[in-house]
Each structure stands twice: as C-alpha cells, then as structure tokens.
C-alpha cells in the first residue's frame, strides 16, 4: 500500500489530504501514476490537468516524471512551492 499526500490546491481540488491505496502495475513511473490517478475522479482529473504545475516527491525525495516507482511508501503531490 502507498499513501498519497496532497497539498495546497491539489488537496482542495481532489477533496482530501491523503488516501492509501495499492498502486496498479501500470503506475511504474511518476508520469504513469499521474495518468492513472487522473482517471479516479473528476477532482483528480482537474487537479492533475496541467502537469507543468504539479510537483511530486517520492518517499520525501523530489521526483521527476521519469522517476520509477518501486514500492514507494509515501508519494506527495503538490504545486510548485511558493517560498516562505
């Protein structure tokens, strides 16, 4: 099982701050995960529509679209940070 964390307007658009689920085999990279997540609800689809505004951290390390997912425990999805 993997815990997905959502922050800021990603959280608001998806309507929850986290969900724990089993990733399907097709979610083998960050990009593929986002493609799959976008099919889960209209809120997911809207939040993830513009991938240029989405950042991802896998097990608390910044990841790119190509980062492979090998049994991650925690994936955070959020907008670009805006500083303090």
């Amino acid at each position, binding site marked *: 099982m993997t815990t997905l964390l959502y922050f*800021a307007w990603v959280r608001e658009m998806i309507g929850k701050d986290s969900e724990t689920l089993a990733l399907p085999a097709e979610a083998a990279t960050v990009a593929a995960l986002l493609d799959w997540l976008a099919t889960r609800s209209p809120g997911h689809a809207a939040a993830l529509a513009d991938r240029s505004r989405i950042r991802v951290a896998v097990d*608390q390390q910044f990841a790119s679209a190509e980062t492979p997912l090998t049994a991650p425990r925690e994936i955070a999805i959020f*907008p670009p940070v805006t500083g*303090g």
Partner: protein
Amino acid sequence: MIAARLQQEPFDAAAEQAALTSGRTDLGAAVAFTGLVRADDGLVALTLEHYPAMTLAQLQAIAANAATRWPDTIGTIIHRHGRLLPGDAIVLVTTASPHRAHAFAAASFLMDWLKTKAPFWKREEWADGTTRWVDAKGSDDNAAERWLAKSPSTPP
C-alpha cells in the same frame, strides 16, 4: 552551527539572539532578520501550508549549507506556519559572527533561499472573502540564483 525550527507559535527574536550570543566574547556582530506579513492590496490573512516530513529537513539542509559557507557564523532559523495576519512576524533568521560581513551575508543568503525555495504553499485571504493560492514568483528566484551560481551544493 545554524539551527532550524518550524512552529505555529510566535517567536521571540531577542531571546533567540541572546541564546546565540550570551556568554560569548568572540562575536562582533549579530544580525536578526524578521519577515513580516504585508497587507498588500487588502490582504486580510495568509496561511502557510507545508509538508512536515520534508520541510524541516530542507530548512536544516540550507542551514548546514550556510554554516559551510560561513564557518565562523552561528545562527537560528525559525519559520512559522498556519494562519497569519498582516503585521505578524512569519520568519526569523538570526546570525552571529566575529565579522559583520559574514553575519550579514549568511542572513541574506538564508532569506533569499527561504523566500523562494522554502517548501511552503501560501493561501491569501482577501477583504471580499475570496482566497487565492500564491503562484511561484520569478523575481525572488533570481535573488536565490545569485547564490546558487556560487555553489552547486544548495539543497533543492
């Protein structure tokens, strides 16, 4: 050693600076930078959301980076999160060094990074009841790039 803390509560800049300098007679300079929430264009509140597991680690990484650049400089970073009002103090960077140029440079370096790279998302509340998530800013990025150009070791 430059320490970093995250907290919701207000901080006491004078106490933090005293903790750095008390009992020391080798420090010639202490700088305290306090960032304040501005009421630009009718802002009524600012909420900082963050990713607890990553944010503190990143603040500690930039603190360690600064300590490497200015080894004679000690300091403390305190960043607040949660809902803040105009005039509230949102961030403190206090540094102390034998040399004033080092104390100034370390504080300025840390603030450039914090204002642009610190992993926070800010939601603005306006007088008309609307809210808006702040977009990343270009100009502050440039201020941070000045430092990045000097070393590849700045944390993300």
